[in-house]
């Protein structure tokens, strides 16, 4: 499937990105008291998607939906969060980020659900 249903693959890529980002943030929070640990994050979805959309054709993406999932892990930093033991995790900052990831995931699933509903409606099988 390509063309019109690109929105579905985009929504699922967004949900996968949010889930992966949440995993990385969960690791940060688990290591909030590990000495020498540096907080990580995933690059924003818009950047990653723009890169994969420009390098992969629509057909490649349609055949391999996960082909664009080469998200880069970046070292994140909140100003003033460095502890004396070298740990750079700030719990408040991580909570904000994970709520952001959760919101992105909710948005992606809502878009997916709505698109399916519209398709069903156009086929005359509303709800």
């Amino acid at each position, binding site marked *: 499937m390509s063309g019109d249903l690109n929105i579905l693959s985009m929504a699922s890529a967004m949900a996968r990105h949010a889930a992966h980002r949440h995993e990385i943030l969960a690791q940060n929070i*688990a*290591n909030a*008291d590990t000495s020498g640990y540096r907080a990580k994050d995933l690059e924003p979805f818009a950047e990653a998607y723009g890169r994969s959309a420009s390098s992969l054709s629509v057909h490649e993406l349609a055949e391999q939906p996960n082909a664009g999932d080469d998200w880069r892990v970046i070292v994140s930093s909140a100003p003033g969060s460095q502890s004396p033991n070298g740990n750079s995790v700030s719990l408040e900052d991580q*909570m904000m980020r*994970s*709520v952001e990831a959760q919101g992105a*995931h909710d948005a992606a*699933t809502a878009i997916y*659900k709505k698109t399916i509903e519209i398709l069903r409606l156009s086929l005359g099988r509303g709800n």
Partner: protein
Amino acid sequence: MNDFMGSMSAAASGMNAQGYRLRLVSENVANADTPGYRRKTVGFNAVFDSAAGANRVEVGRVTFDSAPLEERYDPANPLANEAGYVQMSNVNLVMEMADGREANRSYEANLATFQQARHMYSSLLDLLKR
């Protein structure tokens, strides 16, 4: 491995580690008046669990605080040395309280992460329920 399972296993290992730390804090507080007791401390390590395929946190070795033991003048005590001093523990209650508070706060952050992952997972499964 599923990303949500990765989130949940990282959060669970974090809760486990903080719970262990809280246990050591209460052991220290309980032994604050035990003669000769040395305060226990623990460090955490970030590890990759290859069996589960997930990054987790691991509790390191328990070490004893090498700070000097508090000496109390009590010549009547059977444990007193020739000068009349008894070696008590090196537990500082204020420090233990601060440590316990921090462990508690980190535990709650892990719990919140776990609940978020569960919420996201269930909203994904809701898509199938149509």
